[in-house]
């Protein structure tokens, strides 16, 4: 490396370092509604929650769309559910409708792991909807893990029904 090249490399590094520091500070200072870090690496941030609305509240219709299902320990969207998902995506393209996607697991797996898995299921469904034209500002997610099973039995049939994501359409 020639002295000149070395000098310019150092200079460039300093500029990059300074600018990245400035960027970092700006990002922290800009806090926003979600605290000090709104990093977007690996996903599209969720919009702020709507006051007085949740998957559990009466002002949400849980039966407008059927649930979609998942394989054991998986959060990959199943191709057999594409019809449902496209209908939801279409619903979210027009008008002012908003949806809360709730992720659930079967009873196998430990509670906190299941809460993470349920959220991943909800987020996988959300990703699908976003890729099919849905507006991110109209979707919330929540995970209930293994709580609130559709079928309380302990067999393959019940577990398959319980590994699901449901759609709560805000009325």
């Amino acid at each position, binding site marked *: 490396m020639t002295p000149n090249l070395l000098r310019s490399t150092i200079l460039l590094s300093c500029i990059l370092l300074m600018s990245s520091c400035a960027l970092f500070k700006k990002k922290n200072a800009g806090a926003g509604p*979600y*605290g*000090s*870090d*709104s*990093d*977007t*690496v*690996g*996903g*599209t*941030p*969720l*919009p*702020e*929650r709507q006051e007085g*609305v*949740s*998957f*559990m*509240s009466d002002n949400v219709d849980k039966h407008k769309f059927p649930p979609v299902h998942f394989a054991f*320990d*998986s*959060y*990959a969207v199943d191709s057999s559910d594409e019809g449902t998902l496209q209908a939801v995506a279409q619903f979210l393209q027009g008008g002012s409708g908003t949806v809360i996607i709730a992720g659930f697991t079967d009873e*196998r*797996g*430990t*509670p*906190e*792991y299941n*809460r*993470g*898995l*349920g*959220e*991943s299921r*909800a*987020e996988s469904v*959300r*990703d699908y909807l976003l890729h099919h034209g849905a507006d991110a500002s109209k979707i*919330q*997610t*929540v*995970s*209930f*893990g293994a*709580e609130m099973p559709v079928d309380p039995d302990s067999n393959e049939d019940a577990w398959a029904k319980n590994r699901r994501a449901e759609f709560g359409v805000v009325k």
Partner: protein
Amino acid sequence: MINTHALRISRICLLLAFSLGPAAQAADTPTITVSKSDTIALAFQPITGPDGPAITRVLESDLAATGYFTLSSPGSASLIVAGSSSGSQLDGKVSDHGGRSAVAGTYNGDTRAKAHAFANDIVQTLTGNRGIAGSRIAFSATRTGRKEIYIGDCDGSALQQLTHDNSISVGPSLSPDGHLLAYTGYKAGYADIYLVNLSTGSRDRIIKYPGTNSGAAFSPGGDRIACTLSKDGNPELYVCGLNGSARRLTHTSGVESSPTWSPGGDEIIYSYDDHGGPQLFRISSSGGSGQQLSTGFGYCTEPDWSPDGSKLAFNVREEGSFSVAVMDLRGGSARIVASGERPVWGPDSRHLIFSDDGVLYLMDVQTGRKKAIVSGLGRATEPTWAH
């Protein structure tokens, strides 16, 4: 076996060879070295005073549970436990057959508190390790038909229902000093992290970002909470202040969950799942990239770091059922110690509490002895243990 010269010192320091703690190393010259499998034989002179019999019962139970002692007749015991109680004060002492004092102290509080304090002083002085007597636990149970948080002592006594949310209240975490409790509650219809001040009873919903907020774990200092948040579009690990401010630690496409802190607070171990077969990873609590821990098992979740920093307990799933595994972090492989899930270490880094089929068990990992401490509250799961 007893060195008579060293016995002239006022406080005998009996050391178990396997449990050289910092306190023991700093104490007076060791006089007895007990080999790994040995226990110290203790005999009791009934504690005198109005609540003496009750103190004696609690003390015997506390000391037997430690794993360090056997209770025997005065003739065959190497040390005698005695004391006198009056009002809120207990004067306790442990001495040898010659009347020479090994432990002597004054302990204050109600009957149980006095007994626990004396038991912990005996453990600390004779073994160099911290005692677990009277340490606090919390867990989730379905007694009312809903999952609520309960708190109590580590022997399953003094149990109280803490939450009455009539919703889903799960995943409790006690701060190391036992004064604060964080849990995941669905009272607002979403999974949010609530903070309860156990001294004042005040309760706040402190972490309530969009998406799911769960898996709270207090830092050793009790001033930060590591948890999983999905606000950025995917479950990731964050370190939050008790005011709810969040700093992101991980950036992956998979699912991070169940963080546990190193005793110094500089590192976090957690479970990471990328399309099945979750594994354990280790990351600096200030960020960076996670490094996988080699456990030898294909499905590992919910790790818990021992307060002495040397061991990790976690869930292993094999052939459809869950086992409790313990791994030596200084090298060495993981081994299964029991069937069950969600193991958490006690202050002595020797006992675990875990759930198995809705019952909570206290287990001495060194001896393998375990006993049920919480049952009959519906299904009890997700224990946490203050250090």
